[in-house]
């Protein structure tokens, strides 16, 4: 198990299958995320059984986080506990499927929680397809430290989500963003990291200077962002564990900004402005060498790698307005992929490689949208006074973005939406927030 960020609660999380339980064939318990489902799948989640006194509080907390993860996807509906007929007081006792069928639960999640003498936390769970009366996948056991209990709850919810939807998990993940305070004409900004669901907010810079658009490295251990700490906008690299930071790249430029990591984490593609002209550059982090990728007199910015590292999508106003283009990491002119009405900016390649999310401005409104990587199948997911800056969940099925309200009292907040355009949700941040970047699934 490699080390996780010490800053974010050290947690040795081990996952093991429980006693051999035959892997069931996929039954009818299945959600296709792309099928436009409207009716959430009903599940029953009896409180996880505490296996000792020390586990009694945590078992309830863990159960609530699991339910919250699932319900907030919009794909699941929890059947209230007071409707349950069966009580689960022993994790290993046999399931009375008829009792769960009677309340129309399609999925049943049972679990147990043990806090050992050394403080280790052991969480076990099983998932059942009620109408087929079979387990869906093996039971699993997670072992970690008690202060990492939220992560273990997310792991359970991730397993349930993945088994039922067939999609990759995303709940056990973090988001880096800009926390904002103060009036609109003197906004204070600082970087913060939170769990994907808004819990465990940690501030990682002061608000002494403007910070913009942080992005995690692929392994989540570093953050690259734009900082005015030197007095001028500069691409800055931070180590998450130590919070050590340094200016990188664009040393000769008047301004460097819009950085994003390559999939292998060894390079950073970014924008730099020289004599008023913004172009794209590539930095090799190890050697410090930079290479210029574009040379047009237009604005080239907001670059994002494809997950296989073979292409970069970016925005340019060379046609007269912001549009999206794709080029190879070696640079060049690139080829345009956006052709709809309005302006397109901030493209971000999905982790699966299948879509590009973007910000669109048209007819006085802002939208978050997705399109295929050739520009086809454009779909707008949101529309508002000011939506911008999408970022993908690790499984590429949910997008988070900034939504800012208008006027003197206007303030930004983080929202998420499915790539189907459903389930718009405001993320629970303690203050105004902008520029989210969704990190990788933790391990």
């Amino acid at each position, binding site marked *: 198990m490699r080390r996780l960020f010490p800053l974010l609660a050290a947690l040795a999380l081990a996952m093991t299958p429980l006693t051999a339980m035959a892997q069931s064939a996929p039954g009818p318990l299945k959600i296709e995320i792309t099928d436009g489902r409207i009716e959430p799948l009903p599940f029953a989640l009896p409180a996880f059984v505490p296996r000792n006194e020390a586990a009694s509080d945590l078992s309830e907390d863990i159960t609530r986080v699991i339910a919250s993860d699932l319900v907030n996807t919009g794909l699941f509906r929890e059947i209230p506990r007071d409707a349950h007929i069966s009580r689960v007081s022993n994790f290993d006792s046999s399931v009375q499927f008829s009792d769960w069928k009677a309340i129309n639960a399609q999925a049943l999640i049972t679990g147990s929680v043990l806090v050992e003498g050394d403080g280790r936390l052991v969480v076990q769970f099983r998932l059942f397809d009620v109408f087929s009366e079979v387990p869906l996948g093996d039971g699993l056991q997670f072992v970690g430290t008690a202060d990492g209990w939220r992560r273990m709850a997310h792991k359970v919810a991730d397993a349930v989500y993945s088994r039922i939807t067939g999609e990759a998990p995303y709940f056990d993940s973090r988001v880096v963003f800009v926390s904002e305070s103060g*009036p*609109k*004409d*003197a*906004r204070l900004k600082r970087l913060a990291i939170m769990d994907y669901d808004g819990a465990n907010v940690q501030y990682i810079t002061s608000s002494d200077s*403007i910070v*913009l*658009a942080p992005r995690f490295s692929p392994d989540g251990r570093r953050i690259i962002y*734009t900082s005015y700490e030197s*007095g*001028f*906008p500069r691409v800055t690299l931070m180590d998450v564990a130590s919070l050590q930071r340094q200016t990188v790249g664009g040393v000769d430029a*008047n*301004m460097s*900004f*819009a950085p994003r990591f390559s999939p292998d984490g060894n390079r950073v593609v970014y*924008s730099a*402005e020289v*004599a*008023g*002209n*913004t172009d794209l550059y590539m930095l090799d982090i190890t050697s410090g060498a930079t290479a210029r990728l574009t040379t047009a007199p237009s*604005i080239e*910015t*907001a670059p994002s790698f494809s997950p296989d590292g073979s292409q970069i999508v970016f*925005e340019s*106003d060379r046609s007269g*307005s*912001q549009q999206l283009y794709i080029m190879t990491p070696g640079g060049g002119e690139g080829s345009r992929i956006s052709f709809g009405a309005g302006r397109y*900016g*901030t493209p971000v390649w999905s982790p699966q490689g299948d879509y590009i999310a973007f*910000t669109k*401005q048209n007819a006085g409104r802002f939208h978050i949208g997705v399109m295929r990587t050739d520009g086809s199948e454009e779909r707008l997911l949101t529309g508002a*006074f*000011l939506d*911008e*800056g999408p970022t993908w969940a690790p499984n590429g099925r949910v997008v988070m973005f900034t939504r*800012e309200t*208008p*006027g*003197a009292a*206007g303030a930004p907040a983080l929202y998420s939406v499915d790539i189907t355009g459903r389930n718009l949700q405001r993320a629970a941040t303690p203050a105004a927030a902008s*520029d989210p970047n969704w990190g990788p699934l933790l391990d």
Partner: protein
Amino acid sequence: MRTTALLLIAALSLSACGDRLGGADGSGAGGVGAGGAGAIVPGSVNDPTSVAYFQQTVGDRVLFAVDQSSLTPDGRAVLNGQAQWLRDNPEYTALIEGHADEQGTREYNLALGGRRANAVRDYLVSQGIGADRLRTISYGKERPIQVCSTEACYSQNRRAVTVLAAGAGV
């Protein structure tokens, strides 16, 4: 002291000398006589060598059309005054801040602010100001001066502001 004495004379003969001291837009000395009696306080808006005079009388900012970085005729007139002032006050350097309104994505607006600041810089250089006295910075949409979400505010936020600093070189 010599400057102050000259200014005092200028103030006393306002109608005759106003244009010569007031810079290109001719409005420069307008406030001098209003104070009535007495000397010009160095550093005050009445002191043509002061930062306050540059900001308020010469004009420290130019405005831009939506998504544009080209200078307007009004903008060039203000910059002619800035160039004159910078020629007359060679001990000052300037940082030109480019700004955008909130109707744009964050990164594009940073680049746009860079373009606007550089348009001002290029113009001042064309008017004979040494490039080594001028530096630019973009704030994108991070520092609006007006906070409403209508064109009345946006038009004031699409700006480039020339911020003076004493001392040679930037």
